């Protein structure tokens, strides 16, 4: 057991965790943040993606104890409040980029990390970033279009 200090969605927290607990299990089971999905638990599907230091990471391959001292952004931290959506969430809604919703948390966070680094990515760049997240409903086209829509909205907002 180890003591870890994390900042999760802007809130500081101190916990005692087992050595083998992954960040994904920690967020879901210890913090109740079940928006982080667990799919394959071997780094392939991307459903457990969270953002650490502006980078999308696989929470299933990241030990909670390794994340000690880091700021973590999860899907629960994306919307500004309980009634409004963030721009990327709104683009997914407008573009019908959600089917069963299981991959959506990871898709949104990967897309957010991309748009934060590159507000106006071209389609190739979007595909290059998003191909690490699997959608078993195969709704890829709408997902790519939703990220493009969010990028276009960025472009009109920042002339």
């Amino acid at each position: 057991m180890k003591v870890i200090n994390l900042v999760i969605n802007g809130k500081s927290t101190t916990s005692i965790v087992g050595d083998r607990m992954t960040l994904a299990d920690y967020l879901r089971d210890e913090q109740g943040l079940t928006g982080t999905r667990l799919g394959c638990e071997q780094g392939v599907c991307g459903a457990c993606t969270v953002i650490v230091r502006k980078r999308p990471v696989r929470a299933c391959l990241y030990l909670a104890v390794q994340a000690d001292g880091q700021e973590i952004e999860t899907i629960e931290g994306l919307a500004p409040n309980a009634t409004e959506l963030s721009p990327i969430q709104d683009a997914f809604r407008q573009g019908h980029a959600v089917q069963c919703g299981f991959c959506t948390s990871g898709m949104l966070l990967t897309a957010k990390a991309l748009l934060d680094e590159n507000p106006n990515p071209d389609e190739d760049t979007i595909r290059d970033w998003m191909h690490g997240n699997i959608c078993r409903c195969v709704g890829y086209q709408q997902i790519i279009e939703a990220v493009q829509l969010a990028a276009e909205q960025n472009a009109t907002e920042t002339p």
Partner: protein
Amino acid sequence: MKLSPFTYCRPDSVAEAIELLAGDPASYPLAGGQSLMPAIALKERRADLLVDISRLDDLRGISFSGTSVTIGAAEPMWDLERSELIRTHLPLLTRALSTVAAAGIRSRATLGGSAGWADRTSQLPATLVALDATIVSSTRRIKAHEFFVGHGQTALNHDELVLRFEIPSASLGHHDLQVVRRTYITWPVAGAAAVGTDAGTIRVALFGAAPAPILIVTSDPADAAEQASDRAAPFDDEHATSTYRQRVIPVLARRAVANVLRVET
């Protein structure tokens, strides 16, 4: 699957890390964990002790000496991909990194981890061989083509850590990368990394062609294909058959060399 029990520790120095590794035969150095953690989850590897080396200063940093680029073993691929220094002096490495898995893997995966894992189908060991990298460990210096000895096997001893890579600048020579893959997130099927040298020859290293990268030094595409065909020791895995690899490997070797030559002439 959930991870089997192990102990995690985060030493403050390379010496302490080596002492911990030496004390337990079922210990592993842990940096990004992008290959090790899945293997533990899938019960392909059993770990009693994970020694986190990702925060050791001796394994971090990217610098240029005037003739070679030094890259810390635990520097995430994310940072290497975005390094202007690497883009300028080792454009082949920047290109190879951009083909590894996905952004969400490269955010934590490290070059040291990829070298230490030494997967037979990985593009990075072959790229290091093509670039004539020197691997600096906690005890010695090893040329990349001597470092990789088999699938998942390197010249490293259990209590030896890769600290950094020293790679001669290859900014003037042209390069090429051929990758055959079924999906992006898993390992490639096969490929070739090629770079032109000051001597006018081309160093081409093949991956997915044998248990370890095959290095061919030539200036003739047909010769590259012939050597590739002769030296290939292809294998079956879930992505391709050995028959397919035997046929595609000479083609990739020839193309890589031809592409380097084409831009040079």
